[in-house]
């Protein structure tokens, strides 16, 4: 009864179009009503849990990484990165397609959101590719697919949320995302190469050293952002939250003082967008803290664990079941909502069969990022369809070939946890 209320009601409310935080809150409230009756509701606990959920220093990384990403999207920073990427890989057949992927990988080291990549960098990438003779579908497809690298290579808002809600080291999660993110990029470049050969897409000439140096000089300061971020976290100079604040200040100095490309009005818009997006995410986190607390009090994770154990106790089988489950969830649910609702349920399950929670976090986030490309609810599909002026049905068709490389990386990461755990073990071995 309580389980169907917990999951059934929540899913029903979400499908009925209730805003995610209210759907989670209403479900929690109804569970409390069923348990304690209308007149004995623990109002203090409701308020306390919500504040407790938000009262977390690590969560501050979310607004700061959002701010850094948005500041990088103002002015010419994205163009500089794209030009630089084009100089490195533009000579390979399908040049701009590869530049698209490499630029997304570099941008992923500055921004933690796939949609920010799709909507910001995506606008420049799609236009440049179409201008050079690539067809619109291919340009849009690779742009959407490469944007999903954003939340895998650090910084990453979904990984921070998973770490906070699942009590997993944020630094380890972020560093653990580097190799899977690079693999995603390489696998996408392989498929770009295949299509480019087949369709005779254009490529640039090999750049002269002078051209390369000009592009490097132009993109040098933005390229330092991932170095500062990842280097700061790896060397232990910054915590992820402090690194996010430093990244935001660095992006502000670059955009406003070094390149002088931001008006006061644009800055105000960036700040307002950051506040709005942070509030959307962090209110969900706060209210899910009440939901998570109730889940544990009613021992639902234990109950689900027993049900799953009836099928198997083999970690690999459980990871396979979870992967199928995450994939279906990712098709219908926005990734932030899915992470907040599912993390408190799946982490105890993973721990009980010996799955490294760090590995689970990476598998879950990568899977949900593929969900950003799948209909009916695919935020990156919507964002790139908009910037590339493609109707949604053609956009879905355009992105379909790129599921394959991403699913292969997901399968590799599932089968070989070392892809995710190797770097954290090297750098954070106690």
């Amino acid at each position, binding site marked *: 009864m309580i389980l169907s209320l917990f999951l059934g009601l929540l899913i029903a409310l979400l499908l009925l179009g209730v805003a995610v935080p209210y759907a989670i809150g209403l479900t929690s409230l109804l569970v409390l009503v069923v348990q304690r009756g209308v007149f004995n509701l*623990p109002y203090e606990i409701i308020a306390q849990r919500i504040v407790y959920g938000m009262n977390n220093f690590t969560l501050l990384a979310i607004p700061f990484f959002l701010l850094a990403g948005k500041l990088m999207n103002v002015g010419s920073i994205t163009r500089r990165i794209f030009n630089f990427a084009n100089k490195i890989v533009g000579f390979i057949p399908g040049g701009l397609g590869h530049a698209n992927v490499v630029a997304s990988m570099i941008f992923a080291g500055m921004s933690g959101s796939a949609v920010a990549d799709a909507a910001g960098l995506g606008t420049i990438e799609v236009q440049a590719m179409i201008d050079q003779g690539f067809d619109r579908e291919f340009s849009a497809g690779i742009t959407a697919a490469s944007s999903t690298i954003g939340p895998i290579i650090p910084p990453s808002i979904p990984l921070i949320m998973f770490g906070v809600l699942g009590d997993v080291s944020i630094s380890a999660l972020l560093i653990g995302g580097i190799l899977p993110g690079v693999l995603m990029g390489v696998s996408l470049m392989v498929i770009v190469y295949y299509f480019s050969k087949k369709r005779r897409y254009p490529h640039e000439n090999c750049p002269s050293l002078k051209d390369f140096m000009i592009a490097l000089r132009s993109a040098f300061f933005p390229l330092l952002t991932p170095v500062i971020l990842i280097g700061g976290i790896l060397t232990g*100079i910054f915590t992820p939250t402090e690194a996010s604040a430093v990244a935001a200040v660095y992006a502000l100095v670059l955009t406003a003082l070094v390149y002088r490309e931001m008006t006061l009005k644009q800055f105000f818009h960036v700040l307002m967008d950051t506040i709005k997006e942070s509030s959307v995410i962090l209110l969900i986190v706060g209210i899910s803290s009440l939901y998570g607390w109730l889940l544990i009090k009613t021992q639902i994770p234990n109950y689900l664990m027993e049900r799953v154990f009836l099928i198997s106790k083999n970690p690999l089988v459980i990871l396979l079941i979870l992967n199928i489950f995450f994939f279906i969830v990712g098709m219908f649910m926005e990734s932030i909502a899915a992470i907040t609702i599912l993390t408190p349920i799946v982490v105890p399950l993973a721990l009980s069969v010996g799955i490294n929670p760090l590995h689970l976090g990476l598998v879950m986030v990568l899977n949900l990022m593929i969900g950003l490309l799948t209909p009916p609810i695919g935020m990156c599909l919507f964002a790139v369809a908009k910037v590339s002026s493609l109707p949604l049905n053609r956009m879905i068709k355009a992105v379909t070939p790129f599921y394959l490389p991403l699913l292969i990386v997901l399968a590799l990461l599932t089968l070989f946890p070392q892809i995710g755990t190797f770097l954290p073990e090297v750098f954070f071995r106690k």
Partner: protein
Amino acid sequence: MKLLRILLYSTAVSILSGLLLAVVAQVIFRYVLHISVPWTEEIARILMIWMVLAGSIIVQKDGSHIRTEFFVSKLPLKIRLILRILLNIASMLFLLSVMKGGFSMIRHTQNIMTGSITWLNTSILYIPIVLCLPFIILFIIRDIVSFRETESDKSTEQRE
């Protein structure tokens, strides 16, 4: 309404700037001046809660919460209207229960000091709940009313 918007936007932007300053100050104090300053973390956490709740008013006003309209948009107009009213009322009931809890927590925590700022008590964490939630509820009521108007206009257009 314009005054409220200006007040809200400037408050939210000031809080975000304060947040950034607090965390950057923490880095500078620790790595440049080698001084441990615990209040920067505490102040940043308090400011974040204020920013999220003030920002949630703007999010509600702009209708930018994450929601799935895909399935509900397939339903007939009348059912959508009824659902919207009922679900918005339910959401308001949830927010009212949070508000009631917020008032109680302010009373209970008035004499409990925060960890590192001795002149500040813990009720500061609950004050934004009782300050901001009424505005969120007001905007939900506005949503119900405007939804009815918009949908009636649409159906009139369709009949014509």
